[in-house]
C-alpha cells in the first residue's frame, strides 16, 4: 500500500491527532454527553474512533514502507541527572515503527468495532450512564494509544496508568453493585503492585543510562558490553548485565500486573464484572497485552539479560498451564474466557521470553481478533438470554442465534489452533521457537516452556470446545435458552468482521516465498533487529530452518482436545463430566474454586494488611491525627475564636475604647523605642 500522506514529515506532525481524537471525544462526552442524547454521544465517540483509525492508517502506510515516523515533542520533564550527570530530558515524542504501528491498528481497529457493538449493547443504559460509558471507553483508547505511541518509557507509563484508571472505572461501571465496585478496586490495587515494579524498573533504567527514551536506550544498548562494570550512580560497581536484569525484572513485575500473569493474575477474572464490550476491548484485546508490548518494545534490553528472559518465559509458561486448568471447570462463560485470556497471555510471554518477539506480537494480534470475537459473542449470547452467563443453562443456541454461533465457532477454532486459522500459526510459532531456543542463563527453560505450553494448548482446545458445545450444541436446557433471540446486526456485523479477521490474519504467518521465516517475522524484523542480532551472537537463537514436527504435534494436540470435549459434552460420553466430578470431588472443588488463590492472598496479604490498617486507623488516624491534630487544632482555634468574640459584643463605647487604647499603645511603643 503506498503512503497516503505524501511526506513523512507531514505524517509525523499529525501523529498527535491519533491520541487527540479519542481524548477530545472523551472530553466532549464527559462534559455535555448526558445532555445531548444517546445518538449524539454515539456519533461523537464513534467519530473520534474513526478519526483515530484513519490517522493511524495513514501512519501505518508509512510503517509498511519501512519508514519510522518519529514526532520529536517538546521537552516535558527536564531534571539534572543523578550524581551530577548530564541533563535528563523527557519529551512528548511519539514513535510509529512497525511494532507500534501494528499495535495502533489493532487498538483503533478493534476499538472501532467494539464502539459500534457497544452502541447497541449499552442501549439499555440511561443517558447519563450511556455517556459515561463512552467517555470512559474513548478515554481508555486515548490512554492505550499514548502507551503504545510514546517514545519514552515515561510516556508509556503515563498511558499505562491511564488505561489502569479506565479499566478500574469500567469494571466498576455498575458501581451500585458492591461486588462489581469491589472487582474494580481489586483490579486497581493489583495493578498498583505491578505499577510499583514498573516504576522501580523505570527509575533503575534512568539511573543506569540517564535516559528513558527508547531510541537513546537502543543506541546505547547496541554497543554495550554487558559484562562491563558501571562507574557511577546507584549501581556503581555492578555489571551492566546485573543492573539491566534488575531493571527489567522490575518492568516485568509491571507487565505481570497489567497482563495478568502469575502471581498477579487474580484481578482479570473478576474484571468480567464490567460490561462485556469492556471485557472484549480492555481485558482481552488491548490493555492486557500492554505487558507483552512492553517486553517486545524493550527487546534490545532483554537480549542483554538472559536471566530476565528466562523469568519471562517460565512465568508465561506456568501461567498458560495454570489458567487453562482453572478454565476446565468454570461454568460462567465470561470466566472461562477470562482464564483463557490469562492463559493466552502466558503464551505471548513465552514467545517474547524466548526471543521470538515477532511470534509473541503475532499472537497478540491474532488473539486480539479471536478473543474480542469470543467476548462479543458471549455478550451477544448474554444479550439474547437475559444476561445469563452460566453455560450449564444454555444449549442449542445454534439455531436461535446462527450468526453468533457461527462466529463463535470460527473464533473457537482459531484459539484452539486448527489449521489454517490464525491461532494455529501464532501459537505454534511460539512453541516451536521455545523448543529450539537456548537461553544461556537457564538452558532447559525453552524445553520446559514447550512442554508446559503444549499441555496448556491441549487444555485450551478442551475447554474452548467445551464452552462451544455446551452453549450452542445439544438441546436447550432452560426456558431462557429456548426463547433466546439473535442480536441486532449492529452487534453481529462486528462479530463477523472479527471472525473474518481471525481467518485472514493467517496471511500474516504465511512463509515468505524464497525467504526464511514468516511474513510477519520479516515485517517486524527491523524493530527487533538489535535484540535478535545479540541473541544470535550468544547462540540463544540460531538461524536456519526448524524441523516441522512441532507444528504437526500442535495440530494433533488441538484435535485431541476438541475430540475429548466433543465426547464429553456433545457426543457419546455425556455423563462423563458428572462422573469425573463425583470421582474426584475434592480435585473438582479445588479447581472450581480457582485453586483457592484468592483465599490464599486473602489470608497471606489482605488480612494482615487489613489488620494493620485497622490499627493505623484507630490509633494513628482517629486518635493521633484526627483527635490531636485535626480536631484538636480545629477545636483550639474554635475556642480561641469564641474567646475573642467576647470582645466583639457590638458595644460602640467599647469599640471606641479599644481604638483609643490601641492608638495609645502604639504611641507608647514607638516613642519608647526612642525614634530609631
Amino acid at each position, binding site marked *: 500500500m503506498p503512503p497516503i500522506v505524501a511526506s513523512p514529515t507531514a505524517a509525523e506532525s499529525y501523529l498527535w491527532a491519533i491520541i487527540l481524537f479519542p481524548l477530545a471525544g472523551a472530553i466532549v462526552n464527559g462534559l455535555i454527553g448526558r445532555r445531548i442524547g444517546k445518538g449524539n454521544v454515539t456519533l461523537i465517540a464513534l467519530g473520534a474512533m474513526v478519526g483515530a483509525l484513519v490517522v493511524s492508517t495513514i501512519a501505518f502506510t508509512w510503517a509498511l514502507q519501512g519508514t519510522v515516523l518519529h514526532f520529536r515533542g517538546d521537552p516535558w520533564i527536564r531534571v539534572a541527572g543523578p550524581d551530577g550527570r548530564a541533563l535528563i530530558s523527557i519529551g512528548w515524542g511519539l514513535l510509529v515503527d512497525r511494532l507500534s504501528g501494528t499495535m495502533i491498528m489493532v487498538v483503533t481497529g478493534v476499538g472501532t468495532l467494539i464502539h459500534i457493538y457497544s452502541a447497541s449493547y449499552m442501549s439499555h443504559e440511561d443517558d447519563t450512564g450511556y455517556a459515561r460509558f463512552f467517555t470512559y471507553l474513548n478515554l481508555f483508547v486515548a490512554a492505550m494509544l499514548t502507551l503504545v505511541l510514546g517514545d519514552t518509557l515515561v510516556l508509556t507509563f503515563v498511558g499505562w496508568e491511564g488505561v489502569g484508571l479506565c479499566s478500574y472505572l469500567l469494571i466498576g461501571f455498575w458501581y451500585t453493585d458492591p461486588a462489581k465496585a469491589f472487582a474494580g478496586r481489586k483490579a486497581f490495587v493489583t495493578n498498583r503492585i505491578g505499577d510499583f515494579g514498573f516504576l522501580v524498573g523505570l527509575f533503575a533504567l534512568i539511573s543506569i543510562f540517564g535516559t528513558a527514551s527508547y531510541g537513546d536506550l537502543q543506541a546505547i544498548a547496541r554497543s554495550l558490553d554487558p559484562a562491563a562494570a558501571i562507574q557511577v550512580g546507584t549501581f556503581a560497581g555492578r555489571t551492566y548485565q546485573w543492573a539491566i536484569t534488575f531493571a527489567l525484572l522490575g518492568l516485568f513485575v509491571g507487565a505481570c500486573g497489567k497482563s495478568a500473569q502469575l502471581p498477579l493474575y487474580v484481578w482479570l477474572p473478576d474484571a468480567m464484572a464490567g460490561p462485556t464490550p469492556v471485557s472484549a476491548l480492555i481485558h482481552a484485546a488491548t490493555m492486557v497485552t500492554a505487558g507483552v508490548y512492553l517486553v517486545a518494545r524493550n527487546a534490545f534490553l532483554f537480549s542483554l539479560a538472559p536471566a530476565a528472559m528466562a523469568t519471562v518465559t517460565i512465568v508465561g509458561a506456568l501461567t498458560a498451564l495454570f489458567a487453562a486448568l482453572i478454565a476446565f471447570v468454570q461454568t460462567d462463560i465470561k470466566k472461562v474466557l477470562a482464564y483463557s485470556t490469562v492463559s493466552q497471555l502466558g503464551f505471548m510471554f513465552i514467545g517474547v521470553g524466548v526471543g521470538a518477539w515477532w511470534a509473541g506480537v503475532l499472537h497478540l494480534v491474532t488473539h486480539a481478533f479471536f478473543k474480542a470475537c469470543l467476548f462479543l459473542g458471549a455478550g451477544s449470547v448474554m444479550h439474547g438470554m437475559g444476561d445469563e452467563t452460566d453455560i450449564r443453562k444454555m444449549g442449542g443456541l445454534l439455531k436461535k442465534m446462527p450468526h453468533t454461533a457461527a462466529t463463535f465457532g470460527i473464533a473457537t477454532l482459531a484459539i484452539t489452533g486448527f489449521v489454517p486459522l490464525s491461532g494455529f500459526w501464532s501459537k505454534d510459532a511460539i512453541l516451536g521457537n521455545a523448543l529450539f531456543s537456548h537461553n544461556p542463563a537457564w538452558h532447559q527453560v525453552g524445553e520446559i516452556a514447550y512442554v508446559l505450553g503444549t499441555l496448556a494448548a491441549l487444555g485450551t482446545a478442551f475447554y474452548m470446545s467445551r464452552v462451544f458445545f455446551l452453549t450452542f450444541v445439544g438441546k436447550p436446557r432452560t426456558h431462557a435458552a429456548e426463547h433466546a433471540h439473535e442480536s441486532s446486526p449492529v452487534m453481529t456485523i462486528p462479530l463477523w468482521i472479527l471472525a473474518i479477521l481471525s481467518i485472514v490474519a493467517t496471511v500474516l504467518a504465511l512463509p515468505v516465498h524464497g525467504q526464511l521465516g514468516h511474513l510477519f517475522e520479516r515485517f517486524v524484523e527491523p524493530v527487533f533487529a538489535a535484540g535478535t542480532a545479540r541473541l544470535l551472537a550468544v547462540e540463544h537463537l540460531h538461524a536456519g530452518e526448524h524441523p516441522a514436527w512441532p507444528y504437526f504435534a500442535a495440530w494433533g494436540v488441538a484435535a485431541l482436545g476438541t475430540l475429548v470435549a466433543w465426547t464429553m459434552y456433545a457426543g457419546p460420553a455425556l455423563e462423563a463430566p458428572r462422573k469425573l466430578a463425583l470421582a474426584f470431588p475434592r480435585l473438582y472443588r479445588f479447581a472450581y474454586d480457582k485453586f483457592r488463590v484468592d483465599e490464599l492472598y486473602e489470608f497471606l496479604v489482605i488480612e494482615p494488611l487489613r489488620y494493620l490498617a485497622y490499627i493505623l486507623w484507630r490509633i494513628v488516624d482517629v486518635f493521633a491525627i484526627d483527635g490531636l491534630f485535626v480536631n484538636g487544632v*480545629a477545636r483550639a*482555634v*474554635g475556642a*480561641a*475564636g*469564641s474567646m*475573642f*468574640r467576647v*470582645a*466583639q459584643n*457590638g458595644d*460602640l463605647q*467599647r*469599640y*471606641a475604647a*479599644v*481604638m*483609643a*487604647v*490601641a*492608638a495609645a499603645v*502604639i*504611641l507608647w*511603643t*514607638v*516613642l519608647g*523605642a526612642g*525614634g*530609631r
Partner: protein
Amino acid sequence: MNGFPTNDFVALLPIAILTVGALAVLLSEVFLVSGRRGYQAAITVVFAVAAGAAAIARPYSGYVFNRQAVVDDFSAFVTVVVCAGLALSALVGAGWLRARNAERGEFYGLALFGTAGMALLGMATDLLVAFIAIEVMSLATYSLAAYLRRGKRPSEAAFKYLVLGAISSALFLYGSALLYGASGSTLFGELAKGRGSPLSLAGLSLVAAGIAFKIAAVPFHAWTPDVYEGAPTPVTAFMAAGVKAAAFALLARIFLSAEAGTAAQATAFSGVISGLAVLTMIFGNLLAVPQRSVKRMLAYSSVAHAGYLLVGVLSASVAGVREKALAGLLFYLAVYAATAIGAFTVVGALERRSRLDDEPADAWDLERFAGLARRRPGLAFAMAVFLLSLAGIPPTAGFIGKLYIFQAAIGAQLYGLAILGVLTSAMGIYYYLRVVVYMYMRPAAGEAEPLSSAATSVALAAAVAVVVVLGLVADPVIRLAQAAGAILL
C-alpha cells in the same frame, strides 16, 4: 497673573466624570416622572466605565496642584479598580434593591461620590488632600450603610461606622498636625525630613492608626463585622472592594514616602505596620472561624485579607523587592475587589427577607447555603470560585495574589510574616470550605428560591471571569501592576 493650570484640571478628569455622574443621577431622581429606575444603574455603569477609561487614557501624568496630588500608573490602577468595583456594585445593587422596592437615585449618587473620593485618595500626595479624599469617601459610605434607614440593623451599623469613623478621622488629623509640626509641610515628599523626631514618629503612628481603621486592621477592626453585616449587602460589597483598595493605596504612598531611603524594617514606623499585620492576620482568621453567619464570616475574612496586604506594603519598603511587592499588592487589591463583590452578591441573593428592611439574625446563616449546588448550580459554582480564591487555592487569582505577596515578603527577608501569612491562610481554608461543604454536600433546607436578576448575573459572571482568568493568565495584569509600582514616588 500666572498661566491657567490646565494640567491640574485635566488630572482630575476621572473624578470630575464620577462627580458629574453622581449629580446627574441625583437630579434625575428628583425630576423623575415614572417609577422606573432601571436606567440609573446603567448611568452609573456608563460613568464608572468612562472614568476608568479616562484614568487609562491619562491625558496628563505627573504632579499637580503644587505636588499635592500625582497622576501616575499607580493612581490609574487604583482608579480603574475602584471604578470597576463601582460598576459591579451598581449592577449588584440594581437587582438587590429592586427586589426590596428600594431602588433610588441616591444609592447610585452616593456610590459615585464615594468612588470619586477613592480615586482622589489614590492620587493624593498631601495629608490634607488625603484627608479630604478620605472624608468624601467615608461620608458617602456612612450614608450608604444607612441606606435602608427603616431597618434597625442598617441604622445601627451606620451609626457605629459614623462615630468610630469620626474618631479615626480625628486620629488621622491629629497625626497630620504632628507631622506638619515635625517637617513643616503636609506633602508626602517632605515627610522624610522630620524622621526620627518623636513628633514625626507620633504623627506617623496616629496617621497609620487612622488608615488602619479604614482598611480594617486589628485592633481598629471592631466596627467591621457589625457594619459589614448590618449594611445592605451591595453596600458591603462596595465598601469591601473600594474603601480597602483606596485606603491601601494611601497607606502605601505614605509608608514608602516616610521610609524613603531608610534601612528596611529598622524603623519604629515599620514596627507599627508589622505589628498591625501580625495581629490582623491572626485575629482576622481566628475570629472568622466560629461565625455561622456567612456575611459576618466574610467581614472577618476582609479583616484577615487586610493583614496579608499589610505584609505586601511592608515588603515594598525594601528596594529590591518593591516592584514585586507593589505589583502583588495592586493585583491582590484588584482580585479581592472582584472576589469580595462576588461573594457578597451571592450572600445577598440568598439572604432571608422580612417585611421591613430589617434582617433576622439568621438571614445569612450557613444553613441557607445548604444544597445550593442542587437548587442553583451556577450560583453555587460562582460562590465556590470566590471562596477558593479567598482561601488562596490555585488556579484562582487569589492564589496568585497571595503567592506574589508572600514571595515579596520572603524577598524582603520578612520570613516570620511570610510564615505567619501562610499558616493563617491555611486556617482560612477551614471556614471558606465549610461554606462549600454546605453548598455541595448538605441536603437543601427547602428554602425559597434565591434572588435572581439579569444585572446580578452579569456582575457575578464578570467577577467569576476576573477570578478565573486572572488565576490562569495573571501575567498581563501583573505586568501592569508592576509598571504601576515601579514609578510610584
